[in-house]
């Protein structure tokens, strides 16, 4: 179980970054770290002790494969993460050009 706990700690580290950091790039990093931890978590769930990678080769005698479904899910999630990151970064560079800073506190033009 220790791997799951460490994985969750990684998730909480990312969450901590998103909630407390005031720099746009740091917030993006925090989100990426949360993403990483969830990818790892899903693959951990699908792992089977002494399993082999889910690719059929000739001459295998009744192999035990690790669960391919979480792997497919993570593959999808990685691309989704890439897409959200790209959007965030586009937003970040646009905000930087408008305000000349990455600090969220200095670009507060909206009222609560």
């Amino acid at each position, binding site marked *: 179980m220790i791997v799951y706990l460490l994985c969750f700690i990684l998730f909480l580290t990312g969450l901590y970054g*998103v909630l407390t950091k005031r720099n746009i790039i740091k917030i993006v990093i925090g989100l990426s770290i949360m993403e990483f931890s*969830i990818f790892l*978590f899903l693959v951990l769930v699908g792992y089977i002790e002494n399993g082999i990678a889910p690719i059929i080769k000739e001459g295998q005698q009744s192999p035990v494969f690790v669960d391919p479904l*979480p792997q497919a899910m993570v593959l999808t*999630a990685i691309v989704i993460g890439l*897409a959200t990151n790209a*959007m*965030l970064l586009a937003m970040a560079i646009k905000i930087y050009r408008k305000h000349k800073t990455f600090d969220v506190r200095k670009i507060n033009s*909206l009222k609560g």
Partner: protein
Amino acid sequence: MANLVPLYIILPLGAAFLIPLIGRLWGIFSKTITSLVLLLLTGLCIAWLFAGDHEAIVYAVGGWKPVNNIPIGIHLVLDGFSAFMLIVINLITFLSAFYAITYMRKYTAENNFYALVCLMVAGMNGVVLTGDLFNLYVFLEIASIASYALVAFGVEKPELEASFKYQVLGGMASLIILLGVGLLYWTTGTLNIADIAQLLLSYSGNRIIIFIQLLFITGFGLKAAIVPFHAWLPDAHSSAPSPISSMLSGILIKAVGVYVLIRLLFNMFALSYEVALAITTLGVLSMVIGGILAIGQRDYKRLLAYSSISQVGYIVLGVGTGMLVLANNGANEIAALAILGGLFHLINHAVFKGLLFMTAGAVEHATGIRDLNMLGGLARKMPVTSATSFSGSMAISGIPPFSGFFSKLIIIIAAVQAQYYFVAFIAAVISIVTLAYFLKFQKRIFSSEEKTTIDYVREVPLFMQVPMVILALFCVFLSLLIIPDIRDIVLMPAVDVIVNAKNLINPGL
């Protein structure tokens, strides 16, 4: 109809993929195809509802049949509740897209706008139709990413900042939801919602289920902007272009937030008293805090955005009351009444909030001002906008015979019948508060003395008036939904699906 279910995803996606290709050669293509697709989809769904046969349709994508009674492919499920949501989504989006034809002329890159609208609709339709948890996450992300881009469409400082805030909180919500999906997969080994529901009936590990429910409530609560997760909504909904505001407030927060919460909590998890209590509390909190914060707003669209939080609170309250009654093994009729009120308010809110954001857009289009203190006396110059806005304001504050009155009344009656007198009292009080700030708002903008700064104002073009008038008429005619015959066709199938959750068909059987 059974074979046509995937059209709800294929048609908007196809339109979105074609727009960047054909749109750059032929300017009018993007506008026409968006409207046509949405009109077609609305018509299709209304036809299904009125055909009378409310058997749920299960469509296996890819044709994968269950193996050993375990569903293996992805299933699309069209039942009364999803059909109801599909009508609301496609109808409001159609009217918004129609309204946008004139409104969006002042922006650059209009093709991207229509492509993103199509993608957002495809995402919402996918969320509503899917019967698979991971697929739900994928389509949720399509709708969310499209909405992030649409909020920032004006690329000015406030838009960008609002969109960034929205994106960070939305991204966090998505990741929390994904964690919940992963934990459920770990617990049950499957992703099909009906299959999970079957397995959870006989599952003993109570703490993990509560933890997953907590994650889902946080995640979808963030998407639905229920207090205390509402921080992004006022910024995002007030910064977006008006047709988008009316879509975001009218349907997006409901399709990806409230709808999914209801579907998962009723149809997938076994109902528990603690969760029902939490949902009701969140509903009351949203209702009260959203309403109180709305009073002090000076910005036209921010006021509407805060009132969205408050009105979504009503929906959640109605559904939560029903959940409490069911969890306490109370009478099914009371639960059904409460949920009926919630869903009725959902469709009403989609209509009048869509309308109010459109009128806000019309006022901004004509005057360029959003500050309530600087507006005034527009009634004579913009009669159509003024009249439609009046209709919307009366509906939202619950004045008979407008539709909002009946849905609020049903929610309050249900709460009284379930003996939650305090909740019913708060709902009634907040209704009065709503009336107060909408009267103020209506008076400030339309009937107070004219301001010299806005002499040049003219009524908005016909293309913007038409959707506003249609929605204003809906504000009145939706009251007809309480007539039993019509109610049985439109609302009751949805309520049935929610209340009799155990009857949810399992594609594996």
